[in-house]
């Protein structure tokens, strides 16, 4: 028992969740119907918490590419690239990513988490310093811990605080990596990249941007916030993931620095993990082709931003407190954990699935109902989500809630 003693508070918290009837962190999708629809608890549900920003999981070209790859190359690679060798498709995907950014090289990892771990833990060892935005994803914190770098957190998006910390480092800034995200995953706000680029140049540091939530979403060609802000020349490393806008799983780092290739020989999360299977690589390549296609990519982003604006405006009109920027991540900020839990449960009863985020996973001490929007959502589905949020404001009674919601929800969408 002794090694489990530290989980006692977790056991109590989980019991509290179990009493509401469904564990919000262990939801079963009984059937997945499309990129935006599933059956949960036997009920037809609109998915608004999947990070499936471009709806690529059900894109026919991606599906077909994955099926073909399984037929011709098998279901898995059964080992790491250093030991088992690379498939030609791994290398093709890396060339295509490098070409997309117009940079020298790219390395593919088996997940986005591993991409951060593999790059940052290897670049920043005990002799280096990482200056990390306070709202960064857990994978970025874990990367610093694995590498053993001196890790200094700066206030979220606060460039005066960052500069103060750069000044304190003196000549050590030459050994410093600044790490930020394009779109922050919880509140959906973006990093002030122009100012970050200026500070990076002034203090001669390195700059890494994690575009996990902004790849395919921002920028004229969908490369992310770095492209949108026109600062790519100031950025040393961009990290991305295949598990959001590209609809599969995996991650990558792209850089113009010739030294990037050295990471293949030293990065433990790269060396000691089985490489992505052929089907994953094939669907990531197909999704990247669609994203890069001038017309298709632009249409997907147009639909995504139209949907995001519809939801952000709808929830604003209802008076909900939201994250600072409209975008594919829309966070409804609720002060109270119990209210958030109740709302989350009632949204699900109305056939709407969002992410419940509780402290300490949230910035500050607020609880969040985090919505992520997809290009694959229809305007009617977004109306349905808004109607469910509207019903929450009228009653907390389960049955009355469903009546309000059925009255407000657009025709054509009903639980099965």
């Amino acid at each position, binding site marked *: 028992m002794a090694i489990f003693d530290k989980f006692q508070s977790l056991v109590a918290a989980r019991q509290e969740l179990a009493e509401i009837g469904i564990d919000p962190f262990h939801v079963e999708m009984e059937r997945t119907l499309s990129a935006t629809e599933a059956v949960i608890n036997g009920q037809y549900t609109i998915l608004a918490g999947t990070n499936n920003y471009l709806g690529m999981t059900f894109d026919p070209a991606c599906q077909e590419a994955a099926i073909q790859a399984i037929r011709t190359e098998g279901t898995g690679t059964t080992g790491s690239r250093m030991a088992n060798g690379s498939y030609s498709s791994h290398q093709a995907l890396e060339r295509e990513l490098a070409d997309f950014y117009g940079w020298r090289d790219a390395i593919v990892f088996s997940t986005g988490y591993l991409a951060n771990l593999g790059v940052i833990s290897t670049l920043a060892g005990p002799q280096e310093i990482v200056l990390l935005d306070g709202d960064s994803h857990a994978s970025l914190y874990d990367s610093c811990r694995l590498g053993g770098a*001196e890790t200094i957190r700066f*206030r979220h998006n606060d460039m005066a605080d960052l500069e103060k910390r750069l000044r304190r480092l003196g000549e050590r800034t030459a050994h410093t990596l600044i790490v930020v995200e394009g779109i922050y995953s919880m509140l959906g706000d973006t990093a002030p990249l122009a100012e970050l680029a200026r500070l990076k140049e002034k203090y001669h540091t390195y700059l890494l941007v994690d575009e996990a939530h902004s790849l395919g979403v921002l920028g004229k060609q969908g490369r992310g916030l770095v492209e949108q802000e026109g600062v790519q020349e100031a950025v040393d490393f961009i990290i991305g993931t295949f598990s959001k806008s590209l609809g599969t799983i995996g991650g990558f780092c792209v850089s113009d620095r010739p030294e990037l290739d050295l990471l293949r020989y030293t990065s433990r999360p790269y060396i000691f993990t089985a490489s992505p299977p052929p089907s994953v690589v094939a669907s990531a390549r197909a999704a990247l082709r669609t994203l890069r296609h001038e017309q298709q990519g632009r249409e997907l982003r147009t639909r995504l931003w139209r949907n995001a604006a519809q939801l952000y405006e709808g929830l604003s009109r209802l008076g909900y407190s939201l994250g600072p920027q409209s975008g594919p991540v829309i966070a409804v900020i609720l002060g109270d954990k119990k209210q958030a839990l109740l709302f989350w449960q009632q949204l699900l009863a109305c056939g709407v699935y969002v992410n419940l985020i509780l402290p300490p996973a949230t910035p500050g001490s607020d609880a969040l109902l985090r919505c992520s929007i997809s290009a694959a959502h229809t305007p009617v589905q977004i109306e349905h989500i808004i109607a469910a949020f509207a019903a929450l404001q009228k009653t907390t009674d389960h049955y009355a809630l469903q009546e309000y919601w059925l009255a407000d929800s657009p025709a054509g969408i009903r639980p099965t």
Partner: protein
Amino acid sequence: MRNNYESVLAQVKAGLAPFIKNGSELTEGTNLLRDLGLDSVQVLEMVLELEERFDISIPVNKLSDVHTLKDLTQVLTNIIDASHQPISRHGDI
């Protein structure tokens, strides 16, 4: 001039004063989480206050073994000494 532990301790006690809600008396043995009832957000605010007070950055990985006021003071003393800056430049002692 090297900063000594006692002068840092006095400054840390002053810096933590706003975070003491339950009238607890701060001693070197005070456990910052358990005895002061601070949550993770308040700990972050406390760290930011101490960083401002001493004009230093406290690395996240230096805090993992900090439990008591004594642990915290020792970590801060080491950082301040390593920066070769006399505490009197930043503090009021």
